[in-house]
C-alpha cells in the first residue's frame, strides 16, 4: 500500500537578498505500489529538486508530499529513512571509508542509539554487495572505486536500508551498458516502488511503467512511454529531432536521434 503522492507542490530555493523564484510549480505526481516511474527532463529542469522534495530534504512551500496516508513532513527524518531509500548523484568521502562501511550505513535508520552492529546487519551488507556484483570489493576503500562501482555501492546501501520506496537520481549515468541493464533489471525484479530520474530516454522507455516529463519546474507530460515519448514532445522539451518507432523486440518505443550531417 506504499504510495508516493505529490500534490500541487511548489518549491523555491531560499536565497538571501532575492525574492524567491519558484523552481517547482504545480507538480502532481504519484508512484503506485511496485511501480517503476521515470522522471525525465533537460538539465536544470528541476529533477533533483523534485526528488529532494520527495525524500524530505526540501520542505515544499505549497502542496503536500505523502507516503501512504502520512504527510512526510509531519513525520521525522528517521521515519522517512526507514521507508524511503535514496541513491544520490554524488557521495563525498574524504576520510577513506571502506565499501562495507559505506553499505553498512544503510542500516542506520533501523538501529537505536545503543544498538551495536549485529550479525544480521553484516548479512544484509554481504547480500546487498553480492546483488550488485561487488562482493569481492568489500574491504576496498570506497574512494578508490570507479564511478560506476561507486554507484553500485550506493545502490547496495539503499537496498540494505530495506525501503518500500526507492528514489534514484540518474542511477545509470556512470555505468557501462552491461551494468546499466543489470542494474535496471535488478531494480525491476525487486518489486519496490521506484522513482528515478533519467537522461537516457531509451533506458527510461525500456524499464519504466510510466514517465513524467519535467521542463522549467513544471510537469509537461505524463503517461506510459508510448504515450509520452513522441517526436513532438522531444522537440518541444529537449529541442532535438528524433525518430520514434517501436522497439523491434518489445512493445516499448525506440528513439533514434536525428543528427545533422
Amino acid at each position, binding site marked *: 500500500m506504499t504510495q508516493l503522492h505529490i500534490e500541487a507542490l511548489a518549491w523555491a530555493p531560499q536565497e538571501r537578498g532575492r525574492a524567491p523564484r519558484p523552481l517547482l510549480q504545480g507538480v502532481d505526481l504519484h508512484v503506485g505500489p511496485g511501480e517503476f516511474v521515470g522522471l525525465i527532463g533537460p538539465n536544470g529542469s528541476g529533477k533533483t529538486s523534485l526528488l529532494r522534495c520527495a525524500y524530505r530534504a526540501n520542505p515544499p512551500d505549497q502542496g503536500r508530499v505523502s507516503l501512504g496516508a502520512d504527510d512526510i513532513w509531519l513525520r521525522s*527524518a528517521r521515519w*522517512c529513512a526507514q521507508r524511503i531509500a535514496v541513491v544520490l548523484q554524488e557521495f563525498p568521502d574524504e576520510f*577513506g571509508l571502506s565499501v562495507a562501511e559505506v553499505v553498512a*550505513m544503510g542500516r542506520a535508520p533501523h538501529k537505536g542509539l545503543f544498538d551495536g552492529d549485529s550479525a544480521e546487519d553484516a548479512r544484509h551488507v554481504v547480500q546487498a554487495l553480492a546483488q550488485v556484483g561487488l562482493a569481492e570489493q568489500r574491504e576496498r576503500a570506497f574512494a578508490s572505486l570507479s564511478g560506476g562501482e561507486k554507484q553500485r555501492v550506493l545502490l547496495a546501501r539503499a537496498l540494505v536500508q530495506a525501503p518500500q520506496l526507492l528514489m534514484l537520481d540518474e542511477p545509470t549515468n556512470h555505468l557501462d551498458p552491461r551494468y546499466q541493464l543489470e542494474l535496471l533489471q535488478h531494480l525491476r525484479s525487486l518489486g519496490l516502488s521506484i522513482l528515478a530520474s533519467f537522461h537516457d530516454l531509451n533506458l527510461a522507455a525500456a524499464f519504466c511503467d510510466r514517465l513524467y516529463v519535467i521542463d522549467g519546474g513544471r510537469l509537461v507530460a505524463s503517461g506510459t512511454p508510448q504515450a509520452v515519448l513522441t517526436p513532438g514532445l522531444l522537440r518541444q522539451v529537449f529541442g532535438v529531432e528524433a525518430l520514434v518507432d517501436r522497439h523491434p523486440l518489445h512493445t516499448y518505443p525506440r528513439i533514434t536521434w536525428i543528427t545533422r550531417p
Partner: protein
Amino acid sequence: MRVGHSTAAYRWLIVLLSVVLLLSCLIALAFGPASVPLAKVAGIVGQQLGIDMPGEWSQSQAHIVWLIRAPRVLLGALVGAGLALVGSALQAVTRNPLADPHLLGVSSGAALGAVLVMLYLGEFIGVFSLPLAAFMGAAASMLLVIGVARRNGRMETDRLLLAGVAVSFVLMAVVNLLLYTGDQHAAASVVFWMLGGLGAARWHVIWLPALCVVLGLVTLQMLGRGLNALMSGEQTALSLGFNGRRLRLQVFTCTSLLTGVLVSLSGAIGFVGLMVPHMARALVGAENRRLMPVSALLGAIFLVWVDVAARTLIAPQDLPIGIATAALGGLFFIALLKR
C-alpha cells in the same frame, strides 16, 4: 598495517593499546628530576592500590611518585585522550581533515577568561579560579561562535569554521592587549598557562576530566552512526534519517564542553587533536565508532610520553608541554608530507 573488519582483530588492538597505555603510565612515573627506579615505582603504586609489593622506598619518594607524578601522568593521559577524541569527532562532523579542538574558538575564549581572572580578580576562589574562569571563557566563546555562524536558523559547516577563526582572532587580540598593558607578573603566569602544562594536576581535581572524557566518549559513540553519515554529506545524512543541524549542534556542544574542561586544566595543547586522529585512521579506518576509542587511547599514550619528554629534556625545569606537542606535531606533518 590496517586492522580489517574482523572484530576480533579490533578487540585485540584495543586490548593491546590499553596495556601499552597502562605500562606507559607506570614507566612515566619513574621519570622526573628526582630519580625513582621503576621497581620502587611499582612498589609505591602497588601499595597505594592495596597490593603488597616487595622493596623499600623512602617517604619522600612515595610522596613524589604518588602525590605529584601520578595525578600528572593521569591528567596527561586524560587530556591526550580527550583532545584526540574531540579532534576525531570534529573532523568527521565538519568533513575537514584539518579540524582540531581549538577550531571553535574554545581555547582563545579560555585564554581570555584566564587573563581576566589573573589580571583583575586574582585567585578569588583559590586554585580553582583559573580553571573555572578558563572554562567560563571557553563556554562563552563557543556560544559566540555558534551565534555568529547561524543564519536563518541554519548553521553550515563552512560558516562555523570561518566563525571559529574570526572569533578566535578577535578574542586573542583582546587577550594580547590585556597581557601587554597589564601587570607583568600576572601576565607571565597567564602566558605560562597558555603554553600548556600538566603541573596543575592534583588528585582532588582528576575526577572532573576523567568523568568528562568518559561521558564524552560514550556520547560520541552513541552519535557514531550519525557522524559516519554526516561525514558523507548533508544529503546522505538526511536520507539516512539524521537531522544534520541537530546532530552538529550536539557534537559541537559536547566537544566544546569537553575541550573547555581540558583546556582549563592543562592550557592550550595543540596538535594532539589534529594529528592523533590521522594516525588512528591509518590503523582502523574512518568508521567513527571504531575510530574514536582507538584515537582516544593513542592520544593518551602520546601525551603521556610527550610529558615525559617535557619533564626530562630541560630538567630540573619543566618544558611547557604545548611547545613539545607543537614541535613534534609539526615535524610529524613534515615527515608525512615528505613521505
